[in-house]
């Protein structure tokens, strides 16, 4: 019974696509339609309270990541750890437009920011980084592999590009169950060169799936600059061959990101199939903690920090809106305390018991 309906859902998907946009085969198909709508008004109209709310979320990510970097330096976090510093506006701007409990999110290994943007407790994220029992994956996943069913956060994946196909499956699930949810699938500019990304684009468009593909273009994949790895460096165009409309968004401005999300998500929710968003951003730190960063100049990083920082940008805007600087300082203090508490928790929690090694391999123990 169940399998019959899987078949019919898949079978009906292509026709859905045709009925949803009848001229999709004709010349009226406009890949830039969403971009045009977005450029009509490209910043979210937020009052100071709301911008303050987004600002706090970004600041929490920044302070959390700074602390994680310190703990790594002290040897409390081992292995691979990828910080999100510089890219905060992307996760915060996009996820603030999701309907929690309804929509799903999936990402790669640079995942702490996406977790925090969802309001997941920093304590259990930090405890996962230090490999403790209290960590969100009981210390068995680590920095790159974190999950939360409660928030429909499907991880945290170490294999570059793999999460994109999984996102296609999540979106299929939303459509199959008719739960009204959409899937947000993040990946990097480097990941955008994996073949399975394009297999998924095709299926998602063919089956008219409710998915938003998000390329976080931070200009580098480890030591490889975008132009050295990619024939088409305008990533938002890469859905063209699959009739997926693209959007190019300044990922360093949280209100622009948020506005773009409004446009994209509405399109997907209305049953029009996938959207591909390119968020132009920048990572300030090395790829992971052991990156000598010889592939770019200090000036390049400095220039980004000074002129495009998403948090400083929001702060300046808040002050202009009349928010008291003292208030902002208090917020920073509160967030620093929250992060310090998470670090203490992560340091003092016990390691998992050795018996944990054998749990969760399969449903049954063996």
């Amino acid at each position, binding site marked *: 019974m169940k399998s019959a309906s899987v078949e019919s859902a898949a079978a009906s998907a292509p026709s859905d696509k045709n009925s949803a946009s009848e001229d999709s085969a004709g010349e009226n198909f406009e890949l830039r339609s969403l971009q045009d709508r977005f450029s009509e008004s490209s910043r979210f109209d937020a009052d100071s309270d709301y911008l303050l709310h987004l600002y706090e979320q970004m600041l929490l990510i920044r302070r959390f990541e700074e602390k994680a970097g310190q703990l790594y330096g002290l040897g409390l976090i081992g292995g691979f750890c990828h910080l999100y510093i510089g890219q905060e506006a992307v996760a915060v701007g996009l996820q603030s437009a999701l309907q929690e409990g309804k929509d799903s999110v999936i990402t790669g290994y640079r995942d702490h920011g996406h977790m925090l943007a969802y309001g997941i407790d920093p304590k259990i994220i930090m405890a996962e980084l230090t490999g403790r029992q209290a960590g969100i994956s009981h210390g068995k996943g680590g920095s790159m592999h974190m999950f939360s069913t409660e928030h429909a956060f499907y991880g945290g994946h170490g294999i570059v590009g793999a999460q994109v196909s999984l996102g296609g499956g999540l979106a299929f699930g939303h459509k199959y169950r008719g739960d009204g949810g959409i899937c947000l699938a993040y990946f990097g500019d480097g990941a955008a060169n994996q073949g399975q990304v394009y297999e998924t684009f095709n299926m998602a468009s063919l089956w008219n799936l409710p998915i938003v593909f998000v390329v976080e273009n931070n200009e580098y994949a480890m030591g*490889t600059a975008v132009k050295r790895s990619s024939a088409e460096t305008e990533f938002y165009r890469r859905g063209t061959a699959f009739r997926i409309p693209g959007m190019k968004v300044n990922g360093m401005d949280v209100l622009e990101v948020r506005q773009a999300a409004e446009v994209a998500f509405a399109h997907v929710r209305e049953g029009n199939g996938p959207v591909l968003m390119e968020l132009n951003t920048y990572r300030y730190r090395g790829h992971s903690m052991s990156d000598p960063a010889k*592939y770019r100049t200090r000036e390049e990083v400095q220039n980004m920090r000074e002129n495009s920082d998403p948090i400083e940008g929001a702060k300046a805007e808040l002050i202009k809106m009349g928010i008291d600087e003292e208030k902002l300082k208090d917020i920073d203090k509160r967030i620093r305390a929250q992060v310090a508490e998470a670090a203490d928790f992560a340091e003092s929690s016990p390691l998992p018991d050795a018996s944990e090694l054998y749990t969760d391999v399969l449903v049954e123990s063996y």
Partner: protein
Amino acid sequence: MSEVESISRTPAGDTRDLTMIEAINEALDIMLERDPDVILLGEDIGYFGGVFRATAGLQEKHGKTRVFDTPISECGIIGVAVGMGAYGLRPVPEIQFADYIYPGLDQLVSEAARLRYRSAAEFIAPMTVRTPFGGGIFGGQTHSQSPEALFTHVAGLKTVVPSTPYDAKGLLIAAIEDNDPVIFFEPKRIYNGPFDGYYDQPTRPWKGHPDAHVPEGHYTVSLGQARIVRAGDALTVLAYGTMVHVAEAVCRQKAVDAEIIDLRTLVPLDIEAIEKSVRKTGRCLIVHEATRTSGFGAELSALVTERCFYHLEAPVERVTGFDTPYPHSLEWAYFPGPVRVGEGIDKLLSE
């Protein structure tokens, strides 16, 4: 030392101490120099010189058309390498970590391994896929795996695992010169020093280790020849990669007169060396980091039992990784280190 040992040590040139990374780098440099058909490709291997520095300086020296970066596209990297090989080139793709080889598995299994057979040898795929593997670096589940048995199971591929700088250089040159596709697994934990599993002791460098004396210039270590690390009579230990050093340290510490055999290549396997040793000692311990079920140890155990049954004084014993994914936390509880290897030896000797 043993015959096996003396056959393989026929190098030319002066020796000096190199790390395994330096030895690999030198092998690649020599092959680029000698053979214009040799090409290196992989993620961050050119400009950056590789995440483990295995290809450092090679792009500068040999140019961007012969040593170059690829996009993150493992299926494509291996696929184009198969085509390059079929055309007559001799590609040496790097897969940054063995954990990322799976997107390219189809190309390895369905194309690289099968091209010769289905074309009755009209086309071949002479390629060497270099890839760091194994644990001990806090890499968690996506930077620590030992997937060698997936490849030994595929007819048409050769599988090589060096355990010393000397062998790394000689085996890599042999692999590149070989006309079959070779998967060259580099035990990343011992790139910079012979880690013996005592994680709480300071790490030792390769410098000063007898097997770090690497001759300059071209030499090969033949594929399919094991190395007797230590001759002995009490039991035979079969190991490869990092576990050779763990086994050696444990036997030294326990003063066990073990015969330790470093397999060096899993396919083709030096079964004669194994058989000869087990017939002499009557006991066989197999050690690998990889998970146990259907691991390469299972094949070794079957072969030893088939060929040496009447000489065995105890059942063949295996010390392996647990049948679980590689954890982020508890790495040393997971790693089949000196304690477990020691227990395996005790059990075998008590039978």
